[in-house]
């Protein structure tokens, strides 16, 4: 997730990927070659990602205030307008804005309630299967057939355990 392949300014394939830290906030930008050259990104002197973001989002906000979700493109301006976020990942990118107000909004700032056990269990199984499949392919490629047989049996066992718990991927 989040590996945006398009230029943030013109939506052409991005080849220049930038990360800058301004006022302890991480700003990321993906640009195509043309836009990067036009904006003087390759010039190390005086280029500021925040300035560029301000211009590209046509915002009058102060540069230091601007946060953008790298996953869904939701901006701080959108948040101000709607009071809602764009996607679950926004909570990572908007943390500097949200975390300080959680305590005033709620009884605390840490979750004390239900945990989705099924989802976590599924994630564990998913990763286990992914890992086993990769190892299996690798052992076949390397002609380590004894390992491959063992891995195949393990995979089968994991799948059976999942079926028993009626977990599907």
């Amino acid at each position, binding site marked *: 997730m989040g590996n945006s392949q398009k230029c943030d300014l013109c939506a052409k394939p991005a080849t220049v990927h930038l990360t800058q830290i301004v006022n302890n906030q991480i700003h990321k930008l993906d640009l195509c070659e043309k836009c990067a050259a036009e904006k003087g990104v390759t010039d190390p002197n005086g280029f500021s990602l925040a300035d560029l973001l301000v211009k590209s989002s046509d915002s009058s906000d102060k540069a230091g205030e601007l946060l953008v979700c790298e996953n*869904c493109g939701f901006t701080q301006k959108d948040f101000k307008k709607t009071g809602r976020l764009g996607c679950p990942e926004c909570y990572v990118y908007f943390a500097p804005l949200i975390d300080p107000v959680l305590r005033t909004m*709620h009884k605390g700032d*840490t979750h004390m*309630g*239900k945990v989705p*056990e099924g989802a976590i269990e599924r994630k564990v199984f998913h990763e286990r299967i992914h890992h086993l499949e990769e190892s299996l392919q690798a052992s076949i490629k390397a002609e380590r057939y004894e390992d491959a047989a063992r891995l195949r049996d393990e995979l089968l066992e994991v799948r059976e355990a999942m079926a028993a718990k009626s977990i599907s991927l």
Partner: protein
Amino acid sequence: MIIEPLLKARPEISGELSRKDTIVLTTRIRFARNLAEHPFPGWAKADQRKEVLSACLPSILGLSQMKSGLSAEVDDLSELEKQILIERHLISRELMEMKGGAGFVISKDQSNVVMINEEDHLRMQVLLPGFHFRKVMNAINVLDSKVEKCLEYAFSPKLGYLTACPTNLGTGMRASAMMHLPALVMSNQMEKVIRAVNQLGIAVRGLFGEGSDASGSIFQISNQTTLGESEAEIIKRLTSVLNTIIEQEFNARETLLETEPTKLFDKIGRAFALLQNSYLITSSETMNHLSLVRLGVDMGMISEEIRSSVDQLFIDCQPGHIQYLADNKIEPNERDIFRAAYLRSRFENLTKPEFIFKK
């Protein structure tokens, strides 16, 4: 009409009642849940919402709770159907306003509802008549755990269930009770109650949520905060507040009966007479009169037998329901005439209220 089966079925307010159940009309808990790696409905494009809808629908329709339930997309409903579902508190206004990809599943008994692509991807609710937080909590918890087996929720160990609005973070839970508080309203104590419970992190709203008025002296009382406490703690806090309000309402009724019986009898008697004899009546006026008649039933002045029909009338006299009962053949400005006629027929053969002054 897509929603026809619902209208023929048992309504949300009915069933056996304990003393507290006469004041708490319904208990409701809703969970807000979102799918990982999908933009929230408000920010998503219509095709992204449709993707979420088709990812969620099979899982929800497959739940045993939803067997023989009703499922539809909002775009397929008429305006009247939308209004009726809102009036029954089955579906929110916000869902109805979503363009493209908004849908819902309602269980056969209407106690379980899952809305898809409302403010969050999933808004699940369990609603039961009376004061039953434990039962409702168990039911919603089972529903949620089943759904969670099939769908990947957006969850952070620190912030809990991630929701479109930070005010729902954490448990994503809103627990609420619909309360009928006519004596607190009549004795001008409601404002005081609202101020007191607000300080405890509990919100008080009118019948239709934020910004709606409290016609019929019906209030929705719910938790305001969702993060930093477990579901059980929130319910415990809310329940203790509700119990206090229930006692205050009973006290207010006793006080009215002792100090101003004439005023109380006059109000209830007039309400009964108006419902029995009107020829033009708005839904808001109807709600207020029905509320007083219901109070009369609670206080033993009017026969207990009519309780269920009064509760049914609270639902049936709302604008969308009246339009439906009139076979959609009347103009909106004729609703007040139709409603009055409908009420006259319902109140025609009822025994008059009986008022007894305490010595």
